[in-house]
C-alpha cells in the first residue's frame, strides 16, 4: 500500500500532463459579436480584440513584427491587437508542421507557405475554416480581384468548392515580377570577345566556352565561371525554354503539355528533356557551369560575383545584388532558341503565386474580423500602406505617384533600402498574402533595368501558366506520396545526368524506374486535376 503512495505523485503528474495536452476543443462556433464588430469602415472592432498569428518571416524583414510602423499603425486603425509569432524562413516548414500536428494552433497562419496538399488536408479535417462566405460578405477588395480575374478564383477553389485561403497574387500585368529572377550576361566580356548576346543554345555554348578559355577579368588566372546561379533549378529556368520543357511555368516541376500533341505529359521522361540534359551535361563537364552549383549558398555566390567571376548568371537584378560597379556590366540574356527551333522562356510563375499564405484556423474566435483585417491590404489604400508605409513618414505623394523619402532610399545609417525599410514595413521579402502590382512594389523587379529586361523576354514567354493544381481528398492521399517519391527521384537523377555521375546509357533504366514508382497513377490524378482546371 505504501507503494501506491509513492506512485501516486508520479501518476498524478502524468495525468496532469496528459490533461494539458488533450484539451482546447471548445470554441467551434463561427459567430461574430455584432455589437463590437463594424461591417465596414474603421475601426474593425470597437473594443480591442486579440489575435495570435504564426508568421513566416523572411530574413530581410524586421526581427520583431510587434514593433513595426505599419503594423502598429494598423492596430490603432482597426483595434485588432495582434501577437506576431515570427518563424524564420529557415525552419518554417518543420515548425509549421509541428504547430499543425500539436493541436495548439494560432488563430492565423500568415506567410507560412502551406503547400496546396496541406491546405486541402487540413481544410478537410476542419483545422482550416472555409472562407467562401466570409470573403463574399467581409472581403470586398479580394472579391473584386477574384471577379476581375476568374482564373485566379478558379485556381484558388478546391474541388469541394471551398476556398480556404487568401492568396498571394502577382498582378498579371506585372510581368517582371512573374518572371522574377532573370538571365544576365556580361556585356563588357561579350564586347571583349567580339561576340553578340547569344540567341541560341549553340551561341550560348560558344560564349561560355570563350569565357572559360580567356582570362577576361585579367587576374592571370582562369578563375572565371561562365555560368552560375544559386541552384541548378534557376539555371534551367533559362535553358529549358529552348527545349520546350516545363512549358506551363515554374509551379509545375513534373508535368506540362507536349508541344506537338497538346497532351499532358510527364516531362522528365520526354525526349526533349533528355536532349536538354545532354546539353547541360556538356556544359557542366566542360566546366562551363559553377562546379559546386549543387552545394553553393547565396553568400558564397555573392562573394564570387563580387570578385567579378561570373560571365553569365540567372538570379535577381545584378545592380541590386552585386552593387553598381559590377552589376552595371550585365545585360539581360535572351530567351534561347533550341536545336529544333523552339524558342520560349519558361521561368515564369502563375499570378496565383501562393495559396497557403493566409489561412484561418478553427481556433479563431473572430473569423469575420480577421477576414476584414486582411482584406484591407487588398485595397488600393491598403496596398499603398503595405508596400510604401505611411505618408510623410516613409513616402510622399508626387505628380508621378508615391515616392519613398530620401531617408529611406539614401539611409543616414548607411543601410541598404531593404534594411532601412525593415524598420517600417514587413516587405520586401516574404510570402505576403497581398496583391503585388507595379504601382507600389519596392523590390528589385520594379527597377528600371529589370523592366527593360522583361521587354526582351516578354515576346517569348509561354502563353499559358498554370497555377498549382488542387486535388480531392482521395486523390490527395495518393498524390502526396507519389509526388514526393517521383519528385525526389527526378531531382536526384537530373543532378546525376548533368554532372555525369550517371551515363545516358542508363536512360531507359531511369524511365523504367519512374514507371515502376507509380507514374501511371500519378498521371491519372494529374489528368483529372488538369481537366478540372480547364473547365
Amino acid at each position: 500500500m505504501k507503494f501506491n503512495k509513492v506512485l501516486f505523485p508520479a501518476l498524478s503528474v502524468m495525468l496532469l500532463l496528459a490533461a494539458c495536452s488533450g484539451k482546447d476543443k471548445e470554441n467551434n462556433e463561427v459567430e461574430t459579436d455584432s455589437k463590437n464588430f463594424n461591417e465596414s469602415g474603421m475601426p474593425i472592432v470597437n473594443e480591442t480584440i486579440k489575435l495570435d498569428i504564426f508568421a513566416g518571416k523572411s530574413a530581410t524583414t524586421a526581427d520583431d513584427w510587434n514593433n513595426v510602423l505599419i503594423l502598429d499603425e494598423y492596430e490603432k486603425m482597426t483595434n485588432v491587437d495582434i501577437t506576431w509569432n515570427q518563424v524564420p524562413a529557415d525552419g518554417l516548414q518543420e515548425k509549421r508542421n509541428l504547430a499543425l500536428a500539436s493541436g495548439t494552433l494560432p488563430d492565423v497562419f500568415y506567410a507560412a507557405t502551406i503547400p496546396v496538399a496541406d491546405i486541402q488536408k487540413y481544410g478537410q479535417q476542419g483545422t482550416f475554416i472555409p472562407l467562401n462566405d466570409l470573403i463574399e460578405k467581409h472581403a470586398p477588395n479580394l472579391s473584386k480581384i477574384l471577379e476581375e480575374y476568374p482564373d485566379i478564383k478558379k485556381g484558388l477553389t478546391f474541388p469541394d468548392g471551398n476556398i480556404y485561403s487568401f492568396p498571394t497574387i502577382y498582378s498579371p500585368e506585372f510581368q517582371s515580377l512573374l518572371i522574377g529572377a532573370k538571365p544576365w550576361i556580361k556585356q563588357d566580356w561579350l564586347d571583349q570577345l567580339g561576340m553578340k548576346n547569344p540567341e541560341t543554345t549553340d551561341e550560348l555554348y560558344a560564349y561560355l566556352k570563350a569565357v572559360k578559355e580567356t582570362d577576361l577579368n585579367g587576374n592571370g588566372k582562369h578563375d572565371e565561371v561562365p555560368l552560375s546561379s544559386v541552384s541548378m533549378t534557376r539555371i534551367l529556368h533559362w535553358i529549358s525554354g529552348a527545349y520546350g520543357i516545363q512549358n506551363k511555368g515554374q509551379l509545375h516541376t513534373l508535368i506540362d503539355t507536349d508541344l506537338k500533341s497538346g497532351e499532358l505529359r510527364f516531362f522528365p521522361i520526354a525526349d526533349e528533356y533528355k536532349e536538354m540534359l545532354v546539353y547541360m551535361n556538356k556544359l557542366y563537364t566542360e566546366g562551363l557551369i559553377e562546379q559546386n552549383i549543387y552545394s553553393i549558398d547565396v553568400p558564397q555566390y555573392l562573394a564570387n560575383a563580387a570578385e567579378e567571376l561570373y560571365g553569365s548568371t540567372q538570379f535577381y537584378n545584378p545592380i541590386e545584388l552585386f552593387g553598381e560597379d559590377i552589376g552595371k556590366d550585365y545585360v539581360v540574356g535572351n530567351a534561347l532558341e533550341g536545336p529544333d527551333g523552339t524558342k520560349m522562356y519558361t521561368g515564369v510563375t502563375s499570378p496565383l503565386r501562393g495559396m497557403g499564405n493566409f489561412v484561418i484556423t478553427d481556433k479563431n474566435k473572430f473569423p469575420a474580423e480577421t477576414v476584414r483585417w486582411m482584406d484591407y491590404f487588398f485595397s488600393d489604400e491598403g496596398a499603398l500602406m503595405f508596400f510604401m508605409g505611411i505618408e510623410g513618414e516613409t513616402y510622399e505623394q508626387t505628380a508621378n505617384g508615391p515616392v519613398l523619402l530620401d531617408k529611406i532610399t539614401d539611409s543616414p545609417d548607411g543601410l541598404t533600402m531593404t534594411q532601412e525599410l525593415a524598420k517600417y514595413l514587413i516587405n520586401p521579402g516574404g510570402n505576403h498574402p497581398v496583391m503585388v502590382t507595379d504601382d507600389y512594389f519596392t523590390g528589385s523587379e520594379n527597377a528600371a533595368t529589370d523592366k527593360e529586361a522583361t521587354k526582351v523576354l516578354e515576346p517569348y514567354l509561354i502563353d499559358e501558366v498554370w497555377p498549382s493544381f488542387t486535388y480531392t481528398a482521395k486523390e490527395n492521399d495518393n498524390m502526396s506520396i507519389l509526388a514526393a517519391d517521383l519528385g525526389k527521384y527526378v531531382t536526384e537523377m537530373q543532378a546525376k545526368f548533368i554532372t555525369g555521375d550517371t551515363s545516358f546509357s542508363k536512360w531507359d533504366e531511369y524511365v523504367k524506374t519512374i514507371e515502376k514508382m507509380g507514374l501511371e497513377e500519378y498521371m491519372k490524378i494529374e489528368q483529372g486535376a488538369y481537366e478540372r482546371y480547364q473547365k
Partner: protein
Amino acid sequence: MNLNQAKSPKKLPVNSGFNKVRKNFLKNWQLYAFLLPALSYFIIFHYIPMYGVQIAFKNFIANKGIWGSPWIGFDHFTRFFDSYYFWRLIKNTLILSLYQLLLFPLPIILALSLNELKNGAFKKWAQTLTYAPHFISVVVVVGMIVIFLDPINGLVNQLIVLFGGEQIRFLDSPKWFRHIFVWSGVWQSLGWGSIIYLAALAGVNPELHEAAEIDGASRMQRILHINIPSILPTIVVLFILNIGSFMSVGFEKVLLMQNSLNLETSDVIQTYVYQAGLLEGQYGFAAAIGLFDSLINIALLITFNYVARKTSNNSLW
C-alpha cells in the same frame, strides 16, 4: 471451487514476497527516495511519450488528437516496405553503421598507446589534443568539412592539385560520402572514446605487470596478456551498448552533409524519417519507420547481449 483451488497454492508465496518487498522498502525508504527523481524523469520524458507510438498504426488527424484518429493497421509499414527507397535506405544505414562499428577498436588502441607513454607531460598534452575535437559542435564540424573539401578553394583540393592530381568533388559524390562521414566522426570522437578505456587501464593491478616483467615479458606481451584481458569486460559492455544504437547513425551530420548528388549513399532511415515526418508532415508514416528502426536496434541489442553472456560471461544483464 476450482477457482479457489487454483488460487490458494499461489497466494502464499506472492503474499510473502510482497511482504518482503514491503519490509525492505520501509527499512530503506530513504534510498528509494533518492531513486525517485531519476525514476520520474524516465517515466515523464521517456515512457509517457511512448503512447504516441500508436500513430504508427493510425491515420493521424491533428484536430482529433492521437487517441481520436482512426486505426489503419499496418498500412504505413507496408507503404514503407513497398517504397522505392526502402532497400536503398536499409543498405545505406547498414553500411554506414557497419563501417563505424568496424572502427570500434580505434579508441582502444589509442588508450593502450597512451597508457604506455611514460612522459607525464607529453601524455597529458596528447590526451587533451585528442579530446578537443569532441567539443566542436556538429554544425561547425560540417562547416569545416565543407571549407576544407571545397573543390576549388578547399585546402585538400589545392594540395591535390599542387601534387598534380585532379580536383575531387568530395561532397558531391556518393562514393566519398561514407568515408568523409565516418572518418570525420573518428577524428571527432576518438580521444573522447578512449577515456573510459584509460580509466579501466588505470585499474589494472600493477603487481601483474611487475610479475610479468620479472618473468621477462616484453611490452607487447604485457599489453596482449595483461592489459587487454583486464579491460575486456569494459570493451564487451561498450560494444553491446554500441550495438544498441547500431541503426542510429549520426542523423544531424548526415543531414547537414546531404545534397542531391550524394543521396545515393547518404539517404539513411533517419533522414528519411525527418523528411517524411517534419518536412512533409506525415507523422504516422514517419513514426512507423522510426518504430521499425528501433525494433531492429532492440533485437540486435538482445541478440548480442545473449551471445556475449554465453561466450564471455560479460553482459549488460
